[in-house]
């Protein structure tokens, strides 16, 4: 089994563990299958497809309604990514990066909201003199914005 494919399978394991679309049981099933693939000494495409299609997410089966021998290794990996309800246009690497980042942001946002909730329960004061800057209303703030002088409120 080639190293790239093994590496992809390891990444898939991480993707599965980060996926928000599956419960613990589903994750366990997919991880078992990926594990089984990793332990095989050679790749039997038909068997791989059988194993992967055993996962009960029929929505994506039509996409790969091809003969098993026409599927490449990367197709199999992409198929698993699709089964995890991720966009097919993502590569395995940027899917993993997306999920890692998403997971980190979820954690960060949760901490941020908890922090604000804690402040809501306290009496807040604001000083007279505050410094400001200008930012776009939407995300994607740019650095070129002009800083304005300290203001009095």
């Amino acid at each position, binding site marked *: 089994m080639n190293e790239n494919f093994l590496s992809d399978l390891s990444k898939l394991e991480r993707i599965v563990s980060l996926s928000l679309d599956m419960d613990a049981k589903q994750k366990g099933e997919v991880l078992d299958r990926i594990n089984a693939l990793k332990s095989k000494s050679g790749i039997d495409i038909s068997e791989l497809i059988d194993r992967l299609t055993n996962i009960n997410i029929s929505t994506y089966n039509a996409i790969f309604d091809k003969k098993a021998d026409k599927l490449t290794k990367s197709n199999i990996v992409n198929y698993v990514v699709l089964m995890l309800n991720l966009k097919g246009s993502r590569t395995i690497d940027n899917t993993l990066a997306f999920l890692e980042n998403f997971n980190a942001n979820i954690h960060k946002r949760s901490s941020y909201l908890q922090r604000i909730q804690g402040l809501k329960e306290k*009496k807040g*004061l604001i*000083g*007279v003199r*505050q*410094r400001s*800057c200008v930012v776009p209303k939407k995300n994607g703030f740019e650095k070129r914005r002009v800083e304005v002088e300290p203001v009095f*409120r």
Partner: protein
Amino acid sequence: MENELVVSGENGIKYTIKVIDIFTVEGYPDKEYIAYTFEEPIDEENIKAYISILKETETDFALLGISDKEEFEVVKNSFFNMVDEK
């Protein structure tokens, strides 16, 4: 709104702020900063955002102005970097 806080000014008037982020900055380990807006428009695309030092006790918190211009520069750049990453 989950990111809104009510704060009192020294004139006794209550203001509602929308918190953009609460963060720390390298080089100022003992301070915590808060970025927020009053949703004051500058023009159609931009609003004014404020960055203050967040001082918190068990019962109160205060948004203190950053008096040191150099500190504000560092904090502002750190804030923009964080926002760019989002």
